[in-house]
């Protein structure tokens, strides 16, 4: 397991979301929603049948609905629970987002814990 630096904790506004493209591929690998002291990290990969793995944002960092209480896939409008990743509405009922593991260290820096070899 490797620690890949994402950002400082304060770089994600409370209630907001940030997408991360740590390998500079032009599309995010993961995104993190911050709620108070908690962070919920998910793979940028919609589980929607036939479109598995589709990128979900419509613009950089734009993964949430207007009320910022759901994750929305802007491919076909699927909505997901921020905490559980479960699909709540839209084209992939019964499916869920794949979690990513992130860690906030003692200096309030946020890291993605992953195996780079398996990512590539």
């Amino acid at each position, binding site marked *: 397991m490797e620690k890949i630096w994402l950002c400082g904790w304060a770089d994600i506004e409370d209630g907001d979301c940030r997408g991360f493209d740590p390998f500079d591929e032009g599309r995010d690998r993961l995104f993190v929603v911050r709620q108070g002291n908690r962070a919920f990290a998910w793979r940028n990969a919609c589980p929607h049948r036939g479109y598995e793995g*589709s990128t979900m944002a419509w613009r950089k960092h734009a993964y949430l609905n207007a009320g910022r209480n759901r994750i929305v896939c802007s491919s076909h409008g699927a909505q997901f629970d921020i905490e559980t990743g479960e699909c709540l509405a839209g084209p992939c009922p019964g499916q869920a987002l794949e979690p990513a593991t992130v860690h906030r260290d003692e200096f309030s820096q946020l890291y993605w814990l992953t195996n780079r070899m398996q990512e590539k």
Partner: protein
Amino acid sequence: MKIIGPDSLVFGVDDVASCNQYLTDYGLIPKEVSAEGGRFEALDGTNIEIRHKEDTSLPAPLPTGSTLRKTVYGVADEGVLEQIAAELGKDREVIRHADGSIEALDDMGFALGFQVTIRRPLSLPDEIVNAPGAKANRGINVIGADEDADIVPRTLSHVVYFVPDQKKAEAFYVERLGFRVADRFTNLGPFLRPQGTLDHHTLFLVHTPPEMQGVEHFTFHLGNPSELLQAGKRFVDKGYESFWGPGRHVYGSNWFWYFNSPMGVHVEYDADMDLHDDSWEPRAVESSADVSQIFNFTLAKKWMPGGDPH
């Protein structure tokens, strides 16, 4: 039955401000934009209309919650409108609106509007390229590459529905509204062309489970492939998320570049679609990556090969 194609697509959305911004940045001309929504026009007046999802003036949403609330078709004249009203009135409610348009549901439950088309005739130059041997070239000392070129979508091209029953959906458009099948992906559905246009398709149906019913994408025609590539690049530079392309389809020959959108559908730039008339024999094939595109590129960052040798 001279239906020309979609004049307007009406969406009921969660995030009105983001949709307004998105369609403006896509290149459409914003009209009557407010916190309640707006209309976003191509050069010929065809448009996307954005409203809040709770707006009570909109037709009811599909059970899946798809954001597309109405597809408004432009027809040649009042006579066609009456023909459609009479045909659909046989087995369903046809609503007549004060503006003269009519409204009814298709056999899948999509709300359709019909109006005498608002399309303004276009008279615009094509891109002229310098092709060896060609009679018309751009000309001497005429520059082709223009970073600041004004690129505005010309006309609303087509919309793609996810439908739970492709046979029934197709029969409605073919038998009741006179659409022709241009080509067909046997496992997905038909590309459909109404009688008032030569465009390969203005509607494509994709067979899916019922919980997916809704819209895959819509697109406007740009002037040519150069405009498509340049408009798409600008859209990426504004932070928007490419989904597929740029590339070129096989059926229809149109160049494509698809993006995610805050309406929760894909939005495409499209250029150079084939034209057909009724002498065209539809092709049919099972869909696959190979038959759906000739090529598919991904935008790469600009770079300077060799750097600075000095």
